[in-house]
């Protein structure tokens, strides 16, 4: 007798993902999709795709989707959620989109206590545009716009979004997770699920920061990229829950 022990989530469409080999966006997509399916909310979820590598995530998540201008996902999500308060509304954003051009929208959506879920994928680089320095790029990390490595003197320090969001009184759930090994992928899924469950329970703004790799623009093999993430990114961006419940 055979039984199915693993299959593609109903939360994903049949489209081939547009991500580079070894990029952990695929894993994170799977986690979000599985959570939406397991919570039984696919039929009334509205996702907001951002600008960057995940710009075409509207083809991949098997629910209604809106594509937002660069950085504006949390504003678009606000507009959707305010007129569809009973639907599940989430954004899926990278570090350039959320932490740089869209930081204002993110902070203020949290500060208004918008009852939405923010999936923040931090890979410390602008991937889609070819590997430029991001606000989350590590000190010493070489990118196409910091070819000698990021320095405090020239570029400033990597920005810590979870720590920043945790200072906002109505950001009710803030956690940073990683995808560098299966154990942490499992933890990431639990965190994503909690962030969506919070919204269903009307608890307000939840954000999960997920450390992710960019093998192509980091100039590494996928395996080395996971190792680099564990050894370098996790040190700069410590994992853990920064807020659970209102301040």
């Amino acid at each position, binding site marked *: 007798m055979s039984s199915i022990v693993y299959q593609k989530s109903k939360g994903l469409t049949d489209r081939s993902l547009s991500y580079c080999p070894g990029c952990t966006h695929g894993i994170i997509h799977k986690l979000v999709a599985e959570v939406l399916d397991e919570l039984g909310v696919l039929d009334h979820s509205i996702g907001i795709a951002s600008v960057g590598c995940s710009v075409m995530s509207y083809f991949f998540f098997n629910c209604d989707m809106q594509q937002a*201008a660069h950085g504006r996902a949390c504003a678009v999500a606000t507009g959707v959620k305010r007129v569809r308060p009973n*639907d599940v509304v989430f954004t899926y954003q990278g570090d350039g989109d959320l932490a740089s051009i869209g930081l*204002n929208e993110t902070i203020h959506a949290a500060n208004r206590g918008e009852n939405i879920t923010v999936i923040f994928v931090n890979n410390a680089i602008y991937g889609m545009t070819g590997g430029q320095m991001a606000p989350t790029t590590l000190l010493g990390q070489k990118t196409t716009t910091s070819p000698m490595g990021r320095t405090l003197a020239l570029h400033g320090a990597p920005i810590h979004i979870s720590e920043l969001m945790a200072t906002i009184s109505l950001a009710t759930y803030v956690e940073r997770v990683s995808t560098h090994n299966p154990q942490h992928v499992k933890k990431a899924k639990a965190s994503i699920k909690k962030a969506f469950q919070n919204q269903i329970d009307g608890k307000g703004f939840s954000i999960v920061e997920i450390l992710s790799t960019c093998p192509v623009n980091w100039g590494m093999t996928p395996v080395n990229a996971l190792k680099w993430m564990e050894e370098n990114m996790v040190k700069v961006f410590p994992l853990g829950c920064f807020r659970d419940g209102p301040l």
Partner: protein
Amino acid sequence: MSKVLKKGNEAIAIAAVMGGCEAFFGYPITPQNEIPEFLSHYMNEKGLVFVQAESEIAAINMVYGASGAGARAMTSSSSPGIALKQEGISYIAGAELPCVIVNVMRGGPGLGGIQPSQADYNQITRGGGNGDYNVISYAPENLQETVDIVRESFDIADEYRNPVMIAVDGLIGQMMESVTFDHEIPHRGPFPKEYATRGRQQTNHIITSLDLDPKKLEEHNQKLHEKYQLICEKEQRYELIGMDKAEVVIVAYGTMARICRSTIQILQKEGVHVGLIRPITLWPYPIKAFEAIPTSATCLVCCELSMGQMIDDVKIANEGRLPIHFFGRSGGMIPDPEDIATFIREVKR
């Protein structure tokens, strides 16, 4: 019909609610603040949506989200704020979403001033945003016309799935005038909005302006272009005043047109026949109005509260037939009817 005395901006807010506005997103900027101030309490009382956004940019993107989810959404602002919204307006046009934008115009460039102006003509009709798109734009002359167009605008936006902008100068926004709200206005529809992200049915709803395939993007642009051509055919609005035997034809809109009405009376008493083409839509530009210019006309006078922006469209519509003179004031300076009469006397000479 009962007449009431209302401040322009407040009347605009009431008209928006009557037009079916379900969600308003805005940011404070003079001289339009009475619109969000009124709606902040009204929308909350009625269980509708009002959000004071963190920025003009956030406000227009909230409109995008709410409209994509099927609501009648609106924002209001003034010139520099509209400049900030242009990216979002381009996305809304590209994604073919309806929305209503009220622009209570002030002087520029830059921070400019807060006095009435028509210096937004280019950013309204040429779009400050990227790409081949147009915004259906109205420039009413007085408060009653403003109220009627605002009431009608949500239907028009829904019909074409396109942003509609109502551009009034600060004078109309700030002045109190008598106005009625209880008369019928034309209705269009119904509009079922099957594209809206209200939860998936047979297929997922996707709202986007992105297409990385050049062939598909060109097809999308051609589809938009056909829509814009249809709008140009069907939606040109204008008023013709005193065109019979006119020796001089003024082209002016909004408050400037209103001033020119008095100029026409002044010159009439001197035996000079002056006509007026008053565009009500800025886009589509009412080119049809220029077919009514009588053979008696010897020149056109384009009058604007700017240094000359609509004049480009007047030249296009005129097709080189008559000489065109320009009278403009800017920075919030409002001319006297006599100033324009003096100008016309001189150009006639």
